[in-house]
């Protein structure tokens, strides 16, 4: 592949570009799903193509193609250069990229069992067995069990001399049950809904989830939710657990810290950010125990790789340190705007046909101390919520509102009855500022976000958010229309 790729580098060099790169990407994506006793998806997708990026006299151009011949690669490179020339019509200064050494390297996601080598029928047998358990009660109207496996093989070459081959592998799955009665529906999932839990690795990820051990509970809780009281409205203390903490981190810190967005380059679509650059190193984002760390080296992380798509080596850095805004997600184009001469390396592209853009890296809330029981014990009147069902946040990442699958009432330090339709709303810095306890490392775990959308044309990216359950004081709970 590098031989084919080098054709693009040759064309780029001939035209004296400031910078050029080509990523040849081969992807395989397998989904196996069973719904209500039937196969709802059995798909196996492969794509192969390349994206070529050039910086010509300080302006960007990008073109992608799928015709795997030297001639087509050269034509696509010329097309990228022609587009860059058009970009020169509207520029302020020349785009310059932060320096990064050239690398010749191979990196791959560590895994134990190749999920594509596990027979489809083994997967189907497991899913049908789960489906049977989920549907053991007639009030379950929708039962869904699924698995998904993704492999991305990249060959990345730059005009600076980098030559990086990477093989990234992710596996995910879940069971969900929806109970329906008189038009009302209640959803419960394990490990979470929205397509399930994903981590970097192979078939061992599915085995470790132990879906069969949770299917009975998922079914019974979905049914119990139908009869549960609605989560009452009021200002109460909140414990967030399960993948809801991942969504809270993702929406209110992850996207808010994307530097392109902070600088206004995402304004026309997803919006901008309140966490503007003059706040770096000063702004109180959360309480003193709040530490949020971006980490492209995190074992199991969906955004973990040897290098990002700017050919920058994987790093680990603080976004929020002891409650203070301390860093951003960066690419090589914009990191200079905050005075950094090297990118933190969080620039990635979706497949071969998209240009690399600034993305959220793996971003985790560092554990503190104690157990969930101790968090509960410190609450007089509150709610514990688990697993996200609905998410919404404003265009500067301040006002958010989340809905969760299930809540538990907390009265006088004791976790009690379950509550349905639990929701909460807040303003980002006030909310993180009200965080007064985060459970210890023994309860810390990683959650995957497999469908993060950004950019125009729209791109998908994957990343993980690790956390332990955490407690927030005086939160607006139970918002209803």
């Amino acid at each position: 592949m590098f031989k084919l790729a080098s054709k693009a580098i040759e064309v780029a060099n001939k035209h004296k570009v400031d910078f050029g790169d080509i990523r040849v990407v081969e992807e395989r994506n397998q989904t196996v799903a069973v719904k209500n006793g039937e196969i709802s998806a059995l798909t196996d997708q492969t794509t192969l193509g390349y994206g070529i990026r050039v910086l010509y006299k300080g302006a960007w151009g990008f073109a992608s193609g799928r015709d795997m011949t030297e001639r087509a690669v050269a034509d696509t490179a010329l097309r990228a250069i022609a587009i860059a020339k058009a970009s020169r019509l509207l520029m302020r200064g020349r785009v310059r990229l932060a320096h990064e050494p050239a690398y010749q390297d191979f990196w791959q996601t560590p895994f134990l069992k190749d999920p594509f080598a596990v027979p489809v029928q083994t997967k189907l047998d497991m899913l049908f067995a789960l489906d049977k358990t989920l549907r053991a009660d007639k009030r379950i109207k929708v039962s869904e069990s699924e698995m998904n496996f993704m492999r991305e093989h990249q060959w990345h070459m730059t005009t600076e001399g980098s030559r990086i081959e990477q093989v990234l592998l992710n596996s995910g799955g879940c069971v969900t049950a929806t109970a329906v009665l008189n038009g009302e529906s209640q959803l419960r999932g394990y490990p979470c809904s929205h397509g399930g839990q994903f981590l970097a690795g192979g078939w061992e990820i599915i085995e470790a989830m132990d879906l069969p051990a949770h299917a009975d509970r998922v079914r019974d809780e979905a049914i119990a939710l139908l009869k549960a009281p609605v989560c009452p409205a009021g200002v109460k203390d909140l414990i967030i657990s399960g993948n809801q903490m991942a969504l809270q981190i993702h929406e209110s810190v992850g996207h808010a810290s994307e530097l392109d967005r902070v600088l206004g380059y995402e304004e026309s679509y997803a919006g901008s950010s309140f966490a503007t650059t003059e706040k770096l190193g000063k702004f109180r984002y959360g309480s003193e125990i709040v530490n949020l760390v971006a980490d492209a080296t995190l074992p199991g992380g969906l955004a973990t790789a040897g290098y990002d798509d700017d050919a920058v080596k994987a790093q680990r850095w603080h976004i929020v340190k002891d409650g203070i805004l301390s860093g951003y997600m960066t690419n090589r184009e914009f990191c200079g705007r905050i005075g950094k001469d090297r990118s933190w390396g969080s620039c990635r592209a979706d497949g071969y046909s998209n240009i690399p853009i600034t993305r959220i890296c793996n971003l985790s809330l560092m554990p503190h101390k104690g157990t969930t029981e101790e968090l509960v014990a410190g609450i007089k009147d509150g709610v514990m919520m688990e697993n996200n069902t609905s998410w919404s946040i404003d265009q500067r990442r301040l006002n958010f509102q989340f809905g969760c699958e299930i809540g538990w009432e907390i009265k006088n330090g004791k976790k009690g009855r379950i509550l349905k339709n639990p929701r909460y709303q807040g303003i980002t810095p006030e909310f993180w500022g009200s965080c007064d306890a985060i459970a210890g490392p023994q309860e810390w775990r990683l959650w995957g976000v497999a469908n993060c959308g950004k950019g125009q044309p729209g791109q998908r990216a994957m990343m993980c958010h690790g956390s332990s359950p955490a407690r927030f004081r005086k939160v607006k709970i139970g918002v209803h229309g």
Partner: protein
Amino acid sequence: MKNIEQVCKKIFKLARGVQCEVMAEKRDSSLTRFADNVISQNVASSALNFSVRLLDGGRSAKMSFNQADDATLKHAVASGLEILKKQKKDPALLPLAKPRPIAPGKNMFDRETAELSPSFRAGKAAELARACGKTGQIACGTVDNGASELVIANNLGLFVRHRDSSVTHSVTVKDHDGSGWAEKTSHDVKNIDFARLNETARAKAAASRKPRDPKPGKYTVVLEPQAVADVLSYMNAYSFGGQFYNEGRSFVCGKLGKQVLSPLLTLEDDAWGAAPGMPFDFEGQPRTKVTLVERGVLKAIVHDRKTARKAGTASTGHALPQPSYFGPLAINLAVKPGKDSLQDLIKGTERGILVTQFHYTNLLKAQTMEITGMTRNGTFMIENGKVAYPIKNMRFTQSMVEAFANIEAVGSEAEFLQGWGYISCPPMRLSGFNFSSATKF
């Protein structure tokens, strides 16, 4: 196109008598994105994707790929057949669709639009950015164009194809603490009035400077077309598709034939109507015109072959590519326009809020279509029939069943918009719309 036909033939041959369906989609797209008054991204892609579904006596597999060389085709079909061999039979699985006559669709293709050059797009971006630069405004947005071709064929003789072109000019203008937005999409660039869109967004940005703090609560709202389309698209996706209906999750369940929404609301899906599209669905079946809501009475839902069979009826031609999370979906929606202009809607409002656009809407509860989201890019207080002053953005948490029962007036000027498919939508005035919290800008 010829190439696609040949690939289909090769695949059918490899399938050796097993039922086989091919969906091929060729898409060329280019997009120029600008922000901060400069071009920030300028890209082009050309893609051709094939999906092959194999069915054999209750067994199925779907293989997708984007390389069409003989080795890839052979490998894909062979691995699909291998999966079939070991699979247990699923008695519920439908065989492939037989060909049915398809009425010709509206012409949706314009060569000039498909082939707009990078310098045309950059020029349009530059016109706006230079004008904004002179007045201290900041231009952000996109100019994109492209063309796509879709073929669905199977070895029972079905072969349908559709091609379209598209161009969209989307403008967001920042003016200090004000912001404005305008967008138009069409299959023909001659329908896009670039200057007018720029002017609308710039004027709105200027008018929304120095916004005041509003108080959350229930208000009469005048929703511009994009805001109506946003929440209506959710309602359509979660309520008017046969799958959620069959599963008992749609608010329409048990209410067909009943007056549930405002008599001012009539909602149709029509591939030859105000929001046209391809004349067949993703199973190659003819689309039919379906009236979903007639003067507030819930009339019908849409089906694909699978949901139709479960419901004991016929497909209405609304299949999405399989597998589909949403099941069938109406993608050529049109709200019947009323008599009032947007200005009339404002004039008839004693006290209320004018909303340009919603942001990050999401479903909270399907039973009542309770949705939350933010206002964006121009939110104004209306007092005594006039736009009085700009206000900061607010979050709404509102049942859309209730909101669309509370329509006071429907506007006369429908816009053709992209949603989950296409939607033609006029502005509307609704009463008692619940804003649940505020934000800081």
